[in-house]
């Protein structure tokens, strides 16, 4: 593409070519199209664009339909009860004589990994965003932004590999010191929640940072100038004026990052282990909702059986949780946005 605006002849193809003064060559006019054909063409194109737009609605309906029917099918099995699913604290579809389908161990595992990721990424991301938006010179910014963009583009399986190969061995160096505490309950094995959580924190860090920075930069300059004029230091201005003014955007960024972490699959499938249990111990193996789905779809259960169908119920739970978080984020953006212009 050379110029964003095409030559005028594209628009006026029905009109004679050549500048003013050129004799009118009637042959160049071609046969004028009737207004009817043009209108028909126009309607066909706009109609097909509208169909394309409806497709995205169909996708949502498809997701809801598939998850709902398969989850209902799961609840029809004799081994399963709705009450146990929502309140049970045991999840062992693949082992043991008596199968239990209580979703809480998977939710707790997801929560533990997400909390670790969030407590790493949210403060760090916010402070980096404040630095990038309020302190950094344009030169520093232009060096740091690409680094964050690279981090944002790295496939999650790479973070999983990093957790398994680098973070876990580093954590295991602490083991000699941890062996004495609580009979070695905090000793790190090959799979643990902390390593997966930290890798996930690295994954969501660029999301937190760049979205928070966008929110901070959207705060009008006048607010900063006013605060400086009142004698505020740069710290006062950025932390006490700019951050509160951008709070809705920052909270929305946090929620988006958290919902990303909850739905993340490959990191936990590689590094968090496969024991569904309710624990707050970061060195324990946990199974998240997504990791359980990976285990099932990798072929640990025969298709059509109750174990297989249970993954749909887990997916439905995951879908509802992330959807609620996304909608909460949009609501906060709409409801609490500070308008200054």
């Amino acid at each position, binding site marked *: *593409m050379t110029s*964003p*605006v*095409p030559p*005028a002849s*594209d*628009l*006026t193809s029905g009109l004679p070519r050549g500048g003013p003064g050129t004799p009118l060559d009637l042959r160049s006019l071609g046969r004028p199209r009737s207004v009817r054909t*043009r209108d028909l*063409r*126009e309607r066909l194109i*706009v109609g097909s*664009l*509208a169909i*394309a*737009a*409806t*497709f*995205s609605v169909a*996708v*949502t309906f*498809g*997701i809801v339909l598939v*998850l709902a029917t398969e989850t209902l099918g799961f609840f029809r099995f004799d081994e399963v009860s709705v009450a146990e699913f929502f309140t049970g604290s045991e999840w062992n579809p693949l082992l043991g004589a008596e199968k239990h389908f209580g979703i809480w161990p998977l939710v707790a595992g997801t929560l533990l990994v997400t909390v670790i990721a969030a407590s790493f990424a949210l403060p*760090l991301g916010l*402070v980096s965003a404040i630095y990038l938006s309020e*302190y950094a010179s344009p030169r520093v910014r232009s060096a*740091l932004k*690409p*680094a964050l*963009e690279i*981090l944002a*583009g*790295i*496939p999650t*399986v*790479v973070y999983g*590999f990093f957790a398994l190969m*680098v973070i876990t061995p580093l954590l295991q160096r602490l083991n000699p010191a941890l062996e004495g505490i609580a009979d070695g309950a905090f000793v790190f094995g090959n799979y643990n929640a902390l390593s997966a959580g930290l890798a996930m924190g690295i994954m969501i*860090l660029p999301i937190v940072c760049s979205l928070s920075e966008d929110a901070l930069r959207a705060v009008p300059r006048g607010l900063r100038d006013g605060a400086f004029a009142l004698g505020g*230091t740069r710290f*006062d201005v950025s*932390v006490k004026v700019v951050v509160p003014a951008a709070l809705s955007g920052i909270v929305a960024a946090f929620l*988006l990052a958290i919902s990303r972490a*909850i*739905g993340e*699959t*490959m990191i936990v*499938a590689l590094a968090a282990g496969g024991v569904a249990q309710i624990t707050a111990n970061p060195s324990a193996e946990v199974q998240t909702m*997504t990791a359980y*789905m*990976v285990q099932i*779809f990798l072929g640990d259960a025969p298709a059509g059986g109750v174990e297989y169908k249970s993954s749909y119920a887990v*997916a439905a739970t*995951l*879908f509802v949780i*992330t959807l609620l978080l*996304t909608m909460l*984020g*949009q609501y906060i953006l709409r409801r609490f946005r500070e308008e200054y212009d």
Partner: protein
Amino acid sequence: MATPRTNATRVFQNRAFLWVCLVATNVAVLVLAVLLLSIFWQGFGELDWDFLTKSASRKAEDAGIKAPLWGSIWVCAICALTALPLGVGTAIYLEEFAKRTRFTRIVQTNILNLAGVPSIVYGILGLTAFVRMFGLFGSNLENAIELGNPESLFYLRLPFGSSVLAAGLTLMLVILPIVIISTQEALRAIPSSLRSGAMALGATPWQTVWGITLPAAVPGIMTGAILAMSRAIGESAPLLVVGSALFLRFTPENLMSEYSVLPLQIFNWAQRPQAEFHALAAGGIIIQLVVLLAFNGIAVLIRQKLQKPLL
């Protein structure tokens, strides 16, 4: 308010916070450096021509990434060919044609919500809608309706089964919201005076879009599309659900072929206990990152070279 702070406290607070900022930002950079270095350290020895031209093997020294590399290319090509027209079309409709009705508001909110759906959930939709086609054609592939010769390039089978076509379409679902949102932003950035000018010359709404608005928005759309594609290349969870092979020696031959993709090959190698396979995984990651960097580089180039001020 608390007791007034002395000037010294204020200055100290300011200094201290700047240090906190610097440390935090440097942690991010440091992590990136450690991540890249550790992967290069482990995987650099694997990189040679054989690694690119050999396929999966039970023996680490014979293994390569030919099949998953070609699988990724096939899947991503299908994904791009379907997601881009659909996504750009949706964005054009919403930005340029749709009246602000209740329906368009619902569509708009819906797209934002879709962008937040975990990718593995799209895998489940893909499994039902593309791999099994809602069971409309029977529950197993033996009763599938076949069109054309299985040997030929134009072989088609209903339902699709675990084929490159089903995988590409599933990835299309994943990146569609990203394409729509970035295209909408690109179109919104076009000043409305350009549209008014075209309309004043007698162009119809579609002529305005096709001749004026779209060409002006191409750099923005391309940047968004490339970033969406780099997401598609790295995406593995949905493909795991729709039945990508984890161990495959052959490259795809037509739309119904079995396939394996690069991130899942990396996943497979990383999962194994033997250290030789971990080195292979690191090698695969290097190839994956090189492809990604190339994509990002192209996006940056387009942004810089093509984006001229419009007014």
